[in-house]
């Protein structure tokens, strides 16, 4: 087991299970608002290919990263803004949805037959799948608007301009708003939250509107009482809000791509600071509202996921890993050519203790040698225990995506998708695909794979 946690970890903060609050469906990007990529739903193996759809090659918002930092001799740099390498999907009530950066539309399919039911076009690229609730699909577009459409027929219910103007500029041959919505739409309570943002020298705008009408403020009637619900349209300077918004219903966490993610108050939209070194657009919010994100920057080791606490302090880093999923006290990640399962709760607790012990030992190293030796012996003992936290390890190629569905760890690779048993790491099933499986979703017994070639494949 790699001893890859560098700093002390709080047991109470990390390692608790993350459960999907909406068991039966995959209603938003990566399953839930914490972007956990986990669901208690199960799928029955073996799977067979049910249908597929070719949506055209995704036209990503940003190009790939620099190949290297030649000054620092740092090669293999990773993209920090690849939030749209494929057409991610959401699924509810027997229907599958995706947003297209190629044809500027949201598409709805019958999950069982693969038949396209309706298409809703916007004026520009749609980069995230819609969030689903109450027979509505909520999504944002590069045309600067957030939309709500009726899931039964694709009819527009409302649309809201996220930009201060209606001006459009050219971006790789498409007209886009000066403030494209590249955060998707996140549903919190009665509200739909999204941001229009592009350039750090222009203000960005964080919006909260009512899901029902798209209005910013409305009167809520419940139990004979009336309550004025205020949304907001908050301007923020010097930011580039892009990537799916995460929330624990108290705070919003919004990635910035090539800068650290930002934290906001969900009620007011006020900024509460940045999240340490949590750069990149791969983000997971743990049950304890710690942010796992990466890659953090090009200065550090390229393959790196960092863990940041609620105060924005960087408290740990996982080297040689660029994707992780945490489910019921277990962590799964790909490190150094192996897929690993880890008793995360115990591991994090022991690692925190180890880090504290080393700090204490170093303090007395020169003044109390016997005590130092004793503490270092304890560290050695802890190392043995930490090693025992490894549940399993199996060789695997570099991973593009991983999610958990019940007892199944589902991994997307270049050229295939594979399912492992979460307890043993045993490979249970795999299927070849063309391209890289960047997107995975599970619902209604279907596993849906989205590739960088624009293909969506349903297995059942």
């Amino acid at each position, binding site marked *: 087991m790699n001893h890859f946690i560098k700093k002390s970890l709080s047991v109470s903060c990390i390692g608790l299970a993350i459960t999907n609050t909406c068991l039966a469906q995959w209603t938003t990007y990566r399953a839930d608002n914490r972007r956990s990529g986990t669901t208690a739903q199960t799928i029955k193996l073996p799977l067979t290919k049910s249908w597929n759809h070719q949506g*055209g*090659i995704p*036209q990503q918002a*940003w*190009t*790939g*990263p*620099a*190949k*290297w*930092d*030649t*000054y*620092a*001799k*740092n090669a293999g*740099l990773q993209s920090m803004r690849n939030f749209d390498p494929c057409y991610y999907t959401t699924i509810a009530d027997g229907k599958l949805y995706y947003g*297209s950066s*190629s*044809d*500027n*539309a949201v598409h709805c399919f019958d999950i069982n037959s693969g038949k396209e039911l309706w*298409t809703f*076009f916007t*004026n520009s*690229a749609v980069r995230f799948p819609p969030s689903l609730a109450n027979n509505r699909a909520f999504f944002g577009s590069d045309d600067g608007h957030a939309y709500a459409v009726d899931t039964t027929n694709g009819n527009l219910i409302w649309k809201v301009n996220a930009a201060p*103007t*209606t*001006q*459009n*500029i*050219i*971006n*790789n*041959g*498409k*007209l886009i708003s*000066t403030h494209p919505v590249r955060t998707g739409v996140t549903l919190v309570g009665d509200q739909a939250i999204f941001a229009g943002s*592009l*350039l*750090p*020298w222009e203000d960005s705008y964080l919006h909260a509107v009512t899901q029902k009408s798209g209005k910013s403020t409305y009167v809520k009637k419940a139990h004979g009482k009336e309550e004025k619900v205020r949304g907001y349209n908050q301007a923020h300077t*010097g930011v*580039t809000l892009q990537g799916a918004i995460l929330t624990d219903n108290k705070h919003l966490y919004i990635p*910035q*791509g*090539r*800068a*650290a993610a930002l934290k906001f108050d969900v009620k007011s939209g006020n900024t509460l600071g940045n999240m340490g070194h949590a*750069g990149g657009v791969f983000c997971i919010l743990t049950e304890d509202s710690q942010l796992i994100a990466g890659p953090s*920057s*090009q*200065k550090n080791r390229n393959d790196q996921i960092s863990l940041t606490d609620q105060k924005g302090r960087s408290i740990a880093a996982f080297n040689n890993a660029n994707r992780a999923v945490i489910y019921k006290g277990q962590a799964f990640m790909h490190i150094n050519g192996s897929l690993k399962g880890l008793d995360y709760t115990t591991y994090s607790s022991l690692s925190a203790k180890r880090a504290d012990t080393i700090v204490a030992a170093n303090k007395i190293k020169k003044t109390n040698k016997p005590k130092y030796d004793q503490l270092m012996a304890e560290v050695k003992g802890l190392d043995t225990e930490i090693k025992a936290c490894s549940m399993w390890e199996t060789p695997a190629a570099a991973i593009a995506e991983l999610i958990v569905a019940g007892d199944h760890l589902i991994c997307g690779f270049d050229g295939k998708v594979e399912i492992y048993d979460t307890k043993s790491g045993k490979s249970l099933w795999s299927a070849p695909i063309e391209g890289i499986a960047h997107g995975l979703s599970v619902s209604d017994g279907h596993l849906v794979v989205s590739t*960088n*070639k624009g293909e969506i494949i349903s297995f059942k």
Partner: protein
Amino acid sequence: MAHTANNFRTICRISHKLCNLSTIYPVAILKFNATLLPMSRLRYSLLPMLCMLLSNSLSAKIIHDWTLDKQHIKDNKLEEIGVLKKPAKFDSEGLLIFSDGQQIHFPEETAKAFSSKPFSIVAKVRVDKPQAWGGFVGFTQDNGNYEKGWILGYNNSNYTFKAAKGSLKIISSKKSISAGQWATLIAIYDGDKISLYVDGKLAQSQQIGNKIDLADIPTNLVIGAYRDKDENFPLEGRIQNIKIYNNVLDQEFIKKKADDSIYKFAVRPKVAFTAPGEAKLTWESTHSGTSSIAYGLTKKFTTITPATSTDNFHSINLKNLETGKTYFYRLSGTVDGKRKLSPIYEFNTSVNYASSSIPKELKLAGSKSDYSKLASKLVGLNKQKAGICLVVGIKDGSLALEIAKQSKFKVICIEKDQKLIDSVRVNLYQTGFYGSRISIFKVYSYKKLPITTGIANLITSEQTKLPISLKAGYALLAPNSKLVILDGETFTVKSKKNNNTTDWNHQYGTAANTSNAGESLKGATATNDLQVQWIGRPGGDFGIDRQPRMPAPLASNGRLYHQGHNRMICLDSHNGQILWSYEIPDLRRINIPRDCSNWCADKDHLYIAIKDRAWKLNAATGEQTETFKLTDSARGEYDWGYIANSGDYLIGSSVLAGSHLTEFWGSQNWFDGATDRRAIAQVISYNLFAYNKHNSASKWAYGKGLIINSTITIEGENIYFLENRSPDLKNGENGRISDNSLWTDKLYAVCLDLKSGKVKWEKPFPKLEYVTATQAGVPAGYGLATKDSFYAVISQSIAGKNTGYYTYYSFSAKSGKLEWDTKTQWRASHHGAHIQHPVIIQDHLYTDPSGIDLKKGKPLGYNYGPRAACAAAVGSGDTLFYRGLGGAISVWGIDEKEVTFWKRLRPSCWLSYIPSNGMLLIPDGGAGCSCGGWMETSLGFAPVRSK
């Protein structure tokens, strides 16, 4: 004595022939000589020794033959006694990888056995990452005053052979190392002299005397490192084979080694992406005849295909290329019946931006109209048939689709009627090309379209009446573009002229090098006077990195040209649409502050210097229409250096082949050190010449001394430069000179007539105040000109101090008279503060932190900015653009003297932002930098419309 000398020569000739016939030569020669020549006893006693020497030099035998590959390295040992210091790793060709400290140690007896006598080494080597000290094979100690043994290796960019006699004597190659390229080195010690050959050509020789001083402390023979008791500089590269001979190799052998070297093409290939998954490869070769390509996703090529060849020109179309992959390829040809192979090249399909073609037969459902002829006429109105086409007001989308079919336009339909939009979108969606080639943009009103202006290359409508006003239509058009109003089968064309915008067609604006092309940007002096008109590709994956100080982008006649990592791209200046691009392995040139750029443009063409020639490319299509070559005698020995065009003339210069720097890995290739001799070494040209750029007729040539590339300037009908006329420097045959005497000894300011090449005036350059032949240095020197004056700006360091001065010299354009000279102190000695290229705005010349009033010839007395971090500054009408505090691109109004900046927008470490074509164009050059969350994207800013 003469008699004896003649006899000696006779003996040598006869002995030579005898030695070739027999190995028992010493005795045979003795007998022969005794019979022929009555000599003194002294001469008789000398003869045997002489004959031994002669015979030894003519029968070199291999005493070690080391091939460093899988077959010969077992259990981490080479030939059982050479011990590898790291676990052996082999590349795809089976060669040992020298990296991360790998090297091989032999016991000292291995070297001691031959190092006291004449010996020769032949090594086939490849340096992937040059460094200050490097070794291929050596038996040496180099510890302060204790210098012993010998070593064949390299110093920075030159191959070296060192041998100790008193101290280590060093000889080196003139030609620079081309990183990643193979070379055959021959090092010879003949008992008196050391010699070094590179690919069969003598680089240098030096007499050192009899017997090399060998170390008397334990010393290994080391392969793959510059290694001794306290130094260890391992090689990053490969060594295919080392042979050690017990004697001196003869010239015939050496010549054969030259012939065995890899087939040299006169010019390297280029790859154009023609469609998604497809590319066209074209190349010129030194020898005419058939050629073929081997290519694949690894260096074990999976496909071999013959090319279409006409004389020296070859081409091939490649299909079914995977997305996002690096392909390797090698070209072959036949020379004298022998198959020759090129080096291995590569191209990357991640930057294949070619748009997909729509099949001709594709029609919209329910469409009965045939718009093919009309669309053909409309498309034909635009030379490049690419960019953005707006169709304002649709009928059923058929004409719009036809325009997309017959061109590379991205067609955007603008429409108000939702019902019409819904039905046409569905039809277009069913073609499979909706969004990628054609789309519909809904608007609520035609009165004020929510679209930034100046972006369209072609505007038309499917409706009989254009739904927008003519004024609104013109506003949407990019300069030099067309608006077409249909009237049944006929149409009217309205053109938008290109008014008052300028071209940045050379490295520093124009060939006059003022870093200001005269673009007004409508008086913009702050960031809020400019707005983004387009944003997008190319991005971070296009370039090498921000640091190696590459050639600047160019913009001419509405096209933006930008260089990346062995590639270039042409975009529309006004909408960022990619028009065409090339992957060119031999394009790379870096450290431009001490050299000159490798390209320039005019309205209709791009001119690029590639090795020993220049390509002329059609600006609209990228097609190569002409090749300008150096003279036959120069090719192979020289490369094309300076390139510029003025009026009908294409001006070029010759540099020694390999003089231009190309290495980019590591901090030393940031070239920022004020006293780093490698960084500040100037690339020099041996001559200047001119062609008629329309018919490639040769016009004139000039060559007197060594022309400093960074000073060559053209303004009006004058060509100016600084030229060193020291015979010592010229005879040194070095293409890159760090010697201070370049600036201090026999330096002249020269003016030639552009049309005839004749000298108009030449003046001795004033003595530098701070730099002498042995002290301090010149980190950079530039030439620039206005109508009335030629200015030389020389940055001088001060010995022993961490500071220096910019010194300015003004020469009359007409007479060459030195009108004034003055100086300003550096702000800092790092991050480019000491090597700023001057910018002229109105009558001021700016460096860092201040500048000069050109009318008065005196310092301005105030600072701008401040400037910070690397990058050169540029100017427009009233404004300086530079890299300011926080490292972002900053704007300083000359009159307002206030700073504004764009947060997180970083340029390259030299020059990657250009005010021209009515825009501020910033193709990405900053990616790779780890010091901030930079945007890593390309942008075009336009003046805010209300100004």
